[in-house]
């Protein structure tokens, strides 16, 4: 075998060795696992965008909470499909709406658990009735407000209307 072939094979072998090493390192760079911790406050400071935009942006990042069991009836109509927290510590949180009511409060059994000293343990309930969503205050200390009006009796909540519960503001979105 000629000298040239031998040299080329020798250098080619070394190149192959490094290809393996570099590929392995490339795999390592993409191989992330474990958990990612995002500080909400820092993100809020960094992105003072519209609340709705932030809510939309966080949705793909949390595939495990993606709506998977939303009933067809809720999706087919033109009514709201989700409840979005637009202000407060939980800003960006999305609760998909089904056909059942959503209980809001500090109690761990609530659908939307607020970590908020200004809300009661069972604070308010949002429920569907006759094709529209209503909010009902469950005797909370600080009250529930729909468009700055205190809720005394079950009140209809149109899509996009801010609902204030303690320090959080929620709204229904399509």
């Amino acid at each position, binding site marked *: 075998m000629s000298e040239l072939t*031998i040299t080329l094979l*020798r250098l080619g*072998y070394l190149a192959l060795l490094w290809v*393996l090493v570099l590929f392995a390192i490339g795999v390592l760079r993409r191989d992330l*696992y474990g958990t990612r911790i995002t500080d909400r406050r820092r993100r809020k400071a960094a992105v003072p965008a519209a609340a709705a935009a932030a809510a939309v942006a966080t949705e793909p990042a949390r595939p495990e909470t993606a709506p998977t069991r939303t009933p067809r009836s809720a999706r087919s109509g033109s009514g709201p499909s989700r409840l979005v927290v637009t202000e407060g510590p939980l800003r960006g*949180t999305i609760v*998909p709406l089904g056909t*059942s009511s*959503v209980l809001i409060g500090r109690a761990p059994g609530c*659908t939307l658990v607020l970590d908020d000293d200004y809300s009661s343990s069972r604070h308010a309930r949002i429920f569907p009735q006759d094709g529209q969503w209503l909010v009902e205050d469950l005797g909370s200390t600080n009250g529930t407000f729909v468009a700055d009006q205190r809720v005394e009796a079950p009140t209809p909540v149109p899509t996009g209307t801010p609902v204030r519960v303690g320090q959080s503001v929620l709204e229904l979105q399509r």
Partner: protein
Amino acid sequence: MATVQPHRVRAGRGVELGLLLLALAIGVASYALAGIGTTDEVPPDVIGYGLGMAALAIGIHLVLRWRAPFADPVILPITVALNGIGLAMIYRIDFAYAARGREDTFAQRQLVWTAVSVILAAAVIVFLRDHRTLRRYTYTAMIAGLGLVLLPLIPGLGVSINGANIWVRVGGVGFQPAEFAKIAFAVFFAGYLVTHRDTLALAGPKVLGLQLPRPRDLGPILIVWGASVAVLVLERDLGTSLLFFGLFVAMLYLATERLSWVIICLLLFVAGAVIAAGAFSHVAARFDAWLHAFDPAVFDQSPGGSGQLVRGLFGMASGGLFGTGWGQGRPDLVPFAESDFIVASLGEELGLTGLLAILLCYAILTERGMRTAIGVRDGFGKLLAGGLAFIVALQTFVVVGGVTRIIPLTGLTTPFIAYGGSSLVANWVIVALLLRISDEARRPAPSMKPSLTPVAGTPVVGGSNEDDQPTELMRGVR
């Protein structure tokens, strides 16, 4: 307020297969080039060799797909590549020895050992479903480890080879029990430290910013120190003693995060080394050969001179940046070119470029082990993965450092590359354990977890309006 979200994990089996094919290509290319370099023609059995290696590698890959689908995708290919490079180098050195009229069958035996190792590693992955099972055998592992270490001292069983009493010969098959003892000790340290780390980390006075342990907590560490000194004194094996002690220090540091332990252990080690150098001629000779390697008197001294070390250095120097090429150098001029000095042989024929790639492979392997330790959720698994990864790293450092004259030469084997059945089997078992733990680390957490925003539960019980019970939520979260 922060949110904790799991990353979307790719199982990585496809990537592993790709890297595995690359690693196999390297192994077969090494073998073919070694044949071309020594006999000027491609070895006739290269296809059979390639198929055999591929069968082993793909076999364990399939076992991973079956039993550990989320195991780390990089560990296995890197190991296969290192093993292939080592086999080719041993095969090539066999040729060199044959040319000098010394018939050896190191390569064939190493090939058999490779098959045994891979099958054993696959068995570990199949039968060890959960690494936490090993925690039950913490103290059994300690007894087993001590027993294995002391095995060569039993008259009639132990064999003294080249001055070190670390061999055991049973029915014609010799092996080094210390290689298996290191796994047993890693299991024992992990189980012991995960239980006692709080005592070791928190109790005790604080002196000069160092949290010192209580004197009575020093007990186990003194036992380990004594054991490693006993290995040094009774079995005259520097490397194994260093490995055990280093493993314990590293795992102690992993468990307690207390620098004081590292400092205490290093002081103990330095004291032990100084005393050993003064008291034992063979240790003193090692130091002498290290410090005055190029002194003609030391070079020619036999036994215990620096001839082997310096010839290895000359070999690597003649390799230069790109090496002489497979089969073009003279690695056989160095005694034990196929085992202790295989790093020098590789340095000569592959050059600095090739040797650095090989060292990077070890670095990647260690990094994967440490990453697994970070990722896995139980303390025992963390310590075990960290300890096993550290064994590979320390062993490589001790060997390569010894051959390149950074530290005194000690008799440890280069993991996966050097000739030696026990070492190969033990290291493959380490890889199997790391793969098993990494499967646990990378597998997505079970989806039953408290979530701030569970999917709104649809009422399963018809007619009930009180649909805000927790059970409802659990059902909604899947």
